[in-house]
């Protein structure tokens, strides 16, 4: 079995799976259950400043989007930071860390945007012997209306400033959690790095309305006839999160900055994908909230088996492996020519490829009276839509054409690598040497 031990910015855990700062990590009871189940670490649900705790709504906090058979695909929430007294949380954190020294225990923080508030809370956290802090600059609802959470995360200068305070007033490793509700994720990451952050974690949740009740005309989740946008998470947000992680990983300014990947991690495969794009650890919430803590057994065993199959002996060997292959569109090889190919033995003649291609794409699939579907190479642009709508896995594949062959669509010979930067249609093209 591959060794899943993880050392993320000096924080050690027996595996790279941490529970994200969220309801599952709000108190000792839940966290101890998670550790007993085998989770590698937790980010304790966000603590606020001293004083009366925040209050939550007393109606639904969650909304959802479902797939077939009510499989939960996306979840949103309007819950705020912990609504338990600060001293209770601090006492429990200290106890848990003492009882579970081998697990990662990071404390999420969100206090008003002034130096004294941060200085005060950091002192308290240090006293718990927690492994580090995560700055919640991501929460998109409620707290942001009070100038915290994503209200900070959307302004790179604030991120840099607060991060700097944290590093000045604490010796603890500092992770800055980023909001995806921003145009360019690289800017807040760069700001965090300038402020001295040891790592970033992302994504936090995405502003969302999960549905509208068509009888009451109110958005869901609904509180007394009204709804507020909440933070969206779960499997539906994973593609957005993967891209944002990759953008930071391949950005020259932030390359090498440790990343804790978050967003829809549901199976070991999702975790492995985040790791190949540069995440040194992953954080999980929705999958645990949907299925309970028991999923950790599949997450760890699955990753371990995959690493064994690939010959990786430590998670570090996986981290960032796909980053060099993430590029900009302009560098994609325009001389890479593929054609769709339908495996007639696997085809079940549903005709979805035909409908998709005929109605919405390039009219590159023919249909015979016997319902035999075939690709017309002279029309196929290899867009991949037929592959994506085919209900049979591997029935339609994209077959690259060998160099030197003539593309029947364009009449041109498949040549060597060439991209847009040197393409004759590009007015900005650089002349070939």
């Amino acid at each position, binding site marked *: 079995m591959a060794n899943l031990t993880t050392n993320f910015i000096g924080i050690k855990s027996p595996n790279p799976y941490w529970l994200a700062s969220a309801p599952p990590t709000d108190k000792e009871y839940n966290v101890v259950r998670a550790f007993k189940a085998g989770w590698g670490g937790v980010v304790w649900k966000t603590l606020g400043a001293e004083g009366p705790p925040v209050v939550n709504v007393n109606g639904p906090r969650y909304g959802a989007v479902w797939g*077939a*058979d*009510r499989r939960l695909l996306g979840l949103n929430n309007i819950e705020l930071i912990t609504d338990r007294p600060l001293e209770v949380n601090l006492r429990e954190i200290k106890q848990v860390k003492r009882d579970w020294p081998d697990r990662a225990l990071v404390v999420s923080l969100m206090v008003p945007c002034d130096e004294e508030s941060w200085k005060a809370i950091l002192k308290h956290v240090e006293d718990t012997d927690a492994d580090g802090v995560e700055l919640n600059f991501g929460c998109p609802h409620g707290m942001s209306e009070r100038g915290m959470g994503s209200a900070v995360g959307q302004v790179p200068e604030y991120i840099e400033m607060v991060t700097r305070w944290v590093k000045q007033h604490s010796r603890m490793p500092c992770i800055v959690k980023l909001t995806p509700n921003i145009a360019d994720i690289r800017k807040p990451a760069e700001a965090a790095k300038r402020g001295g952050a040891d790592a970033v974690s992302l994504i936090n949740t995405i502003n969302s309305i999960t549905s509208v009740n068509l009888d009451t005309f109110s958005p869901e989740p609904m509180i007394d006839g009204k709804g507020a946008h909440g933070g969206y998470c779960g499997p539906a947000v994973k593609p957005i999160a993967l891209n944002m992680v990759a953008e930071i990983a391949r950005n020259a300014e932030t390359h090498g900055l440790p990343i804790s990947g978050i967003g829809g991690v549901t199976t070991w495969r999702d975790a492995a994908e985040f790791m190949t794009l540069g995440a040194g650890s992953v954080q999980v919430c929705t999958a645990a909230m949907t299925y309970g803590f028991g999923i950790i057994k599949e997450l760890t065993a699955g990753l371990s088996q995959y690493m064994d199959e690939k010959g990786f002996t430590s998670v570090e060997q996986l981290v960032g492996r796909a980053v060099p292959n993430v590029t900009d569109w302009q560098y994609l090889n325009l001389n890479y020519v593929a054609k769709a190919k339908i495996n007639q033995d696997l085809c*079940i*003649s*549903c*005709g*979805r490829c*035909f*409908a998709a291609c005929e109605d919405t794409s390039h009219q590159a699939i023919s*249909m015979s009276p016997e*319902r035999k579907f075939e690709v017309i190479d002279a029309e196929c642009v290899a867009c991949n839509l037929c592959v994506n709508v085919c*209900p*049979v896995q591997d029935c339609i594949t994209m077959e690259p054409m060998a160099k030197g062959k003539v593309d029947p669509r364009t009449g041109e010979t498949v040549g060597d690598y060439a991209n847009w930067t040197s393409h004759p249609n590009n007015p900005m093209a650089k002349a070939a040497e």
Partner: protein
Amino acid sequence: MSNSPTTPGIVPARLHSEDYARHFDDLYPSYDPHEAMVAADRCYFCHDAPCITACPTEIDIPLFIRQIQAGQPEAAGKTIFNQNILGGMCARVCPTETLCEGACVREAAEGKPVEIGRLQRYATDKLIAKNAHPFTRAPSTGKRVAVVGAGPAGLACAHRLALHGHDVTLLDAREKPGGLNEYGIAAYKAAHDFARAEVDWLLQIGGITLRQGWKLGVDGTLAELQAEYDAVFLGIGLAGVNALGVAGEDAPGARDAVDFIAELRQTEDLSMLPIGRHVVVIGGGMTAVDAAVQSRLLGAEHVTMVYRRGRDQMGASDYELSHAANEGVKIITNAMPVAVHANGALREVEFAYTHQGPTGLEPTGETFRLKADQLFKAIGQKLEGAPEGLTLDGRKLSVGADGRTSLAGVWAGGDCTGGGEDLTVTAVAQGRDAAESIHAALTAKG
């Protein structure tokens, strides 16, 4: 209760009274909404879907399933009824494994088709339960059409004609409308008096006058109908039953399976219906299966179905046959009856094994006897009481594609005609299409 499955002879009340309700309840209860959503999600919404082509009434199946997915089963029901006004009964009795579900691409892919029949049942039940008829009649045309036979073909024809604004007189010889839906199929396929409820719902279109107890050739002739109405549709079914042609087939205890099924369907308290301890059913079609299975459900100890050819040539579908086997019916193939032995009461039926010879089916020379208190004959029905003057195609009425007979102004459809496979759904398609043809003829200019 003193009788049991082993009581000799033909006796009632072989079972506990509560067993009857259970045995004759819905074979498959309707889906609950979540089941329907999960089942509907399996549909791929195929392009030019094979299931539509396989349906004699060409219901837009992917569309109605998508409407279930989208949370509007009543709209799905209307999509079905647009094409097939008896879509509720067809959902219960269609041999879907040889029609829509047999053509489903998931049948090819994984041997597990989308459960189209049950989804159709779900959608049609939802709409009928609202008890609001989904179609509105066109303004009256003043044209009058006589529809003879209130079975599936006649009902479909009458409804479509009424929809187009024609005034329909629906004539039927029996006490209740519905034809084979009411009298000719197993009770557990149309539980809770569904056949009657469906007719009542269908008649809500308006413009249809139902006359029960009116028999063609007895209470009126075709010529009289032609004189009185602008058009006539014949959906008279097959009133005759084929005889075995062996000695002793009229012995006490031997009867036609269709009569047994009709009696069963009209019996309020099934514990009062007598059934043999040893029942033999001769035939290989749906009627034979329905008689055999229901004999078991009434408490017969031994029920054997005997068919003269091989299993692959049986009219009953594989699904029906495995259902029969599951209910404890023994199925013997390649054996034909040669004698019925009675001694006052029926005692035994003698069979000869058969094989395919150069000139047809031949006895092999080996015979066997089956104990029998009761014998049900189910080797097919035939046209009987057809009016004179109509051209026949073999033993059935000859019709064109639009249901026109050889007589001007007379259309026909359903089992009495040559086309199709004598299925409810085929009869519906023929009745509907004949109605469209009649409508076109009645409204033609000039």
